[in-house]
């Protein structure tokens, strides 16, 4: 039996927001959810995607922190910012390729998911995985995932030329070995031309305008 790991299966997400509510229950950040429920292409689909911290093996947020406020535990969990150190510069907010850290102006500090460190460090499931009704968020062993799911758990992402390995796995079609986010198409800095996927938005196209909402 391998150790417990976190798996995200985006295709199972039903957008019920149970994970968001469960995350808010935690006393360390009551009322503030550390998991983000993203809407995908709101104009064309109701698909949602839960986005918790992926806990990169080499966390970019910690690398760019000028105040040494983001620490990684020996078991690979990247902690939220240390209260006495965080200076609220939002460098980590800019740097994270998954958009996880959020700057909270009310406390002038960054807050992000810390893998429910108090629970997972003693073998309990994180709150979000505990409540997810469709088990889009699962905290279990790799064997159990391979036994019950058709997808393939991977933890390697490619952003342009940057390869990021994460502690959290996502389930992808079996042929895939790496999630290529394909920044090459999105951001063409050298070419200097507009990214091709941006569609012009009419002023009265409410659905398209809603896409721009967080």
């Amino acid at each position, binding site marked *: 039996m391998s150790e417990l790991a976190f798996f995200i299966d985006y295709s199972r997400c039903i957008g019920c927001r149970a994970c968001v509510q469960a995350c808010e229950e935690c006393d360390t950040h009551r009322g503030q959810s550390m998991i983000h429920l993203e809407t995908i292409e709101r104009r064309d689909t109701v698909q949602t995607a839960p986005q918790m911290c992926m806990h990169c093996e080499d966390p970019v947020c910690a*690398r760019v922190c000028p105040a040494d406020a983001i620490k990684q535990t020996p078991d690979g969990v990247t902690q939220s910012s240390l209260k006495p150190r965080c200076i609220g510069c939002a460098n980590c907010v800019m740097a994270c390729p998954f958009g996880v850290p959020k700057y909270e102006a009310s406390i002038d500090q960054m807050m992000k998911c810390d893998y429910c460190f108090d629970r997972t460090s003693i073998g309990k499931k994180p709150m979000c995985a505990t409540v997810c009704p469709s088990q889009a968020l699962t905290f279990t062993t790799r064997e159990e995932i391979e036994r019950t799911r058709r997808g393939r758990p991977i933890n390697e992402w490619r952003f342009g030329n940057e390869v990021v390995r994460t502690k959290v796995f996502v389930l992808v079609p079996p042929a895939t070995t790496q999630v290529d986010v394909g920044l090459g198409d999105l951001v063409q800095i050298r070419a200097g031309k507009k990214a091709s996927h941006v569609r012009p938005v009419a002023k009265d196209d409410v659905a398209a305008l809603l896409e721009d909402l967080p």
Partner: protein
Amino acid sequence: MSEDAKRHLPLWRRDFPIRWDEDHYVTRRQLAKFLTLGSAILVGANVAMVAAGRKHTAESYPPQRICAADALGPGESLLFRYPTAQDPCILVRTKAGALVAFSQVCTHLSCAVVYRKSDDRLFCPCHEGVFACHEGTAGAEPLEGPPERPLPRITLDVRQGNVFATGVAL
């Protein structure tokens, strides 16, 4: 992270590592331990120095003739060097008529003391320290001014009309 990989990191990153287990925080316990052990070492060193000082109370050296026993009248003094040429000493015949000799090196800052006939005492002109000058084990204990310790006494022996220095008693 391996030691080899760490060597390629810039120095500031090695000082401020991202991982908890590579961070070298000085814990409260470490600081307390350092302070306790440091204090214990200081106390031990002081005890050792005091013990070493106590150990050498009297040293005997080869006898050395100073002068004839009747060379000094009461209230007169004579300088000599004993046990070596680097150790200035002073021989005094007190007003009471006793022969005494002490190291001439003031125990405050090593100026040379002189015999002051007016009050029958040894006087250090540098900082106006005053020592007693009489027989007995206490000998030249400090009476006035900055000196805290008595002058070392030179033990004397009068043989066949000559005064000999025979040793140093601290």
